[in-house]
């Protein structure tokens, strides 16, 4: 039982992480509106 919960949690976390990375880097980035700066670029832009 415990193993099942642990595995489910772990693998859904891995799945989410893969999804996040795929959305960020692989899938074509949807066009962002030109306002503000580079957007969510992980660099903190100003």
């Amino acid at each position, binding site marked *: 039982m*415990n*193993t099942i*919960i*642990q*595995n489910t*949690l*772990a*693998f859904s*976390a*891995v799945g*989410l*992480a*893969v999804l*996040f*990375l795929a959305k*960020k*880097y692989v899938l074509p*980035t949807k066009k962002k509106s*030109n*306002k*503000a*700066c*580079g957007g*969510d*670029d*992980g*660099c*903190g*832009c*100003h």
Partner: protein
Amino acid sequence: MSKQINVALIGNPNTGKTSVFNALTGLNQKVGNYPGITVEKKEGICKLPRGVKAHIIDLPGTYSLNASSLDENVVIELLLNKNGKDYPDVAIVVSDVENLKRNLLLFTQIKDLEIPTILVINMSDRMAYKGISLDIAHLERELKTKIALVSTRKNKGIEQIRELIIKHKELSVEPCLNSSTIDESYFDNLKKAFPNQLLYKLWLVITQDVNFGKTDRKNYEAVEDFKTKSKTDLKRLQQKETIKRYQFINETLKKGQTIDLKSAKDLRIKLDRILTHKVWGYLIFGLILLLMFQAIYDWSSVPMDFIDSSFASLSEWVKETLPEGAFTNLLAEGIISGLGGIVIFIPQIAFLFLFISILEESGYMSRVVFLMDRIMRRFGLSGKSVVPLISGTACAIPAIMATRNIESWKERLITILVTPFTTCSARLPVYLIIIALVIPEGRILGLSYQALTLMLLYLIGFGTAVGSAWILNKIMGLKSKSFFVVEMPNYKLPLFKNVVLTVLEKTKAFVFGAGKIILAISIVLWFLASYGPGDNFNNAESIITEKYASENLTKEELHQKIESQKLEHSYIGIAGHAIEPAIRPLGYDWKIGIAIVSSFAAREVFVGTLATIYSVGSDEEETIKNRMAGEVNPILGGPLFNFASGISLLLFYAFAMQCMSTLAIVKRETNSWKWPIYQLVIMSTFAYIVALVAYQVLI
């Protein structure tokens, strides 16, 4: 329904537009004491009494409405496009009390577009110091406007701006200069051809070289035909216009402004003479850099070690407390180690930005721009490239966007291409941890070798940027050099609030922006390191037990051997071994190889990746730094991170183009994939070669 008033903040660079914007909207946009901080328009809402809302737009600074660069275009496009959704109901021209004369040129131009205009005279706190006094009533009369004397620093006059916005309907729209006086007959013709159009607006459209993408072209197409004058004639008329405007402004200021030079105590000139001196200027700058890097090192080592060991204990605690299983392992080995790999760098990043923002706020950064400009000219670039290169020390992305105020396309392109060489804050984590591992701790003249190495890396980055600019310049044959005026803002005591805000903002962006990526990558890596295909992985236990059956190993040793067998044959181990031949000559093992590959997402990922790989299957409580120090070179023996491989890694990170976000921005700014791909390939190949040579020479 509440009514919304569109308000545009316009003014010369560095007059405090963004400060006024922040004061009105309560937002915190970046403010900095050198021109060109804002390159795109930013929007915000200011709540006024009676449910009225003002929609405020902060614009890039512009000297006049005769645009020459992209960011200036933003302003002109907005003002000429009467049907645009952002077309201002009222324009606020922000001027700086110390440069009123120059600032008013733009003001009179906007006034002549017959837009209701408020004049904000900012930095009034400097008046006493400079011996300036103003006759506001006289100025309001002559300039046919309402004036708010403001100091955003002292929080004075903001209320008055709000009141003027509410009463914007009462503002006069009478122009300052009768445009017909520029050339009577020409303007008469113009008036006949387009009876319903505003003359000055027509004139602006005719004389602009730039293309107004969004402006209502149809209306002006006919005007194109009307171009009865040659380009040089138009230029001449434009000059005449400027002269007329200055005559008017001088006349107005003669009575409206008195400057008592005796009461002005000007330290600035003396300071400037030293700080921009041909020799002293550079020496002082070098000294400031040295102190900065030394401080980053000295101040951050204690919090850094504390964070490192806290995360190690936390990971250990999780493993012991939670029930055994995949998720517990993921938490302890993947998530916590990965997060540790980012949190550990908060102190240094915070200190780096603390220094940068103090330098910017105090006005010293503009002197640095001036010093660098002198060097850049030798390499064929104008000073306009300096601002992007310097702001690249924070991050290449805003730096690349800052190239928008370079008029010459080629020069802009070159700057975009070389900017990623400047040492951005994402490299700092990698540099710091490797330097700590491979550079000895001694000191010379109170400066540690480690801090000196760090400074050297920054210089290498900047030097490479300038050097490659020079090469590109030769290849592309840059002809037109941008005209560059270094604006020397006054020295100011950095405002505590601005400094703290910048530091918080940047650190937050680092943690949450890069943090998300690092976390996700750590989770994926944990999975790839904890699972594997085939017998070698799945039967690791029996394989190893059999292999070492005769050797009488302790339980612990045996366990370690099993875990390492598993890791070697996990998915990541297999991938790592596949790329190993390519990086072995550089002195790295497959684990570093994986860290390098994942760093192509973002450089900061490096440390988190290693932390995750090292902690999978390890039971001891150990800090990241100690784990790295304990790694053994699988072929040569001895520490994996030694002087040769360490230097090789440092150089690789200095030169390689490892940042997806930067590539994406370059694509956006150059409008083609060609340039980012060139950047990626050329920079990374160069990095590889340099790292290879360094290792082979040093080993």
